């Protein structure tokens, strides 16, 4: 357990270290925007890394550009639009809702709805199948009586 804690702490400290940088900002809000952006923008060269993570030269250029734009007072969305304008939707980790990507939003909801629909449908069908008539009713009453009597006797 102690080893695990140690491991966890060392990973945590590494994360804290990597988040440290040499950039300077006018205020904390801009620093936060910059940090969020470098984590959300994707490196076009090392495709499964964000630009904060990647060592590719294009990632550095994008970081520098984000820094300049943020220090100019651009909002987060403005910077994202600036990058999408140049590098396409690919550069942002949050894909927009377009006809091509709508399936990403619709499909999970559809699967849940169809799944629940299926369960409800099956239960309704199963309950309909059981026929219940006077004879069954009589048998049931008899059984209840029988067990009640047994309980009395014991």
């Amino acid at each position, binding site marked *: 357990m102690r080893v695990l804690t140690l491991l966890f702490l060392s990973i945590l400290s590494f994360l804290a270290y990597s988040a440290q940088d040499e950039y300077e900002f006018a205020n904390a809000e801009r620093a936060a925007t910059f940090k969020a952006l470098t984590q959300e923008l994707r490196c*076009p*060269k090392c*495709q499964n890394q964000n630009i904060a993570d990647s060592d*590719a*030269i*294009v990632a*550095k*250029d*994008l970081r520098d*550009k984000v820094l300049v734009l943020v220090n100019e007072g651009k909002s987060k969305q403005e910077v994202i639009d600036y990058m*999408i*304008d*140049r*590098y*396409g*939707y*690919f550069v942002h980790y949050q894909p927009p809702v377009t006809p091509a990507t709508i399936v990403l939003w619709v499909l999970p909801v559809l699967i849940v709805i169809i799944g629940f629909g299926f369960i409800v449908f099956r239960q309704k069908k199963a309950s309909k199948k059981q026929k219940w008539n006077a004879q069954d009713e009589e048998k049931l009453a008899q059984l209840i009586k029988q067990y009640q009597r047994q309980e009395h006797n014991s």
Partner: protein
Amino acid sequence: MNKKLLGFIPFLIFIFLCVFLYQGLFGNPRELQTGRIGQTMPSFVLPDLMDESKQWRDTDLKGDVYLLNVWGTWCPTCIAELGYLTELRERGVRIIGLYYEQAYDPDFGDQFDINALRNEVQNMLDRAGNPYQFNILDLHRTLALDLGVSGAPETFLVDANGTILLHHIGDINPRVWRAKFAPVMQELSE
């Protein structure tokens, strides 16, 4: 009957998944839809690689269809495509180089000397072939960023009005030329 049909559904899902994943094996993740296609060339003022007193502007490039080839002597694939690009030049394709330098950046190179770079470029072009009308030096990679360039080699096809029609990431070889560039060039010449 109904039960049998239902039993097929997992099988169908399995087949669908197989097809989906199988075609994913052959997809090229480098083939990106970048943002600049269909837009006009971003405006810029950049020096010539060989002569800093000469400045190139986006407006200077207008008037003719051209390829803008992003390259650098540090990039082996760029060297490899010089031969074929030279062949294209001989066939009458106008090719302009955008020199993508990374040694200028202290994080990516130790020393930068423009004269050494010019020598290196000249030697390389003498040896491997020179496809370029001229080279634009983008020392800070500002035009590269405006164009959505992620590395080298990359090539843009720009029409006479300065509209970017194609953005190809990777080298240009006969196969790429036939499949991607030739049809558009054909359309432009008609």
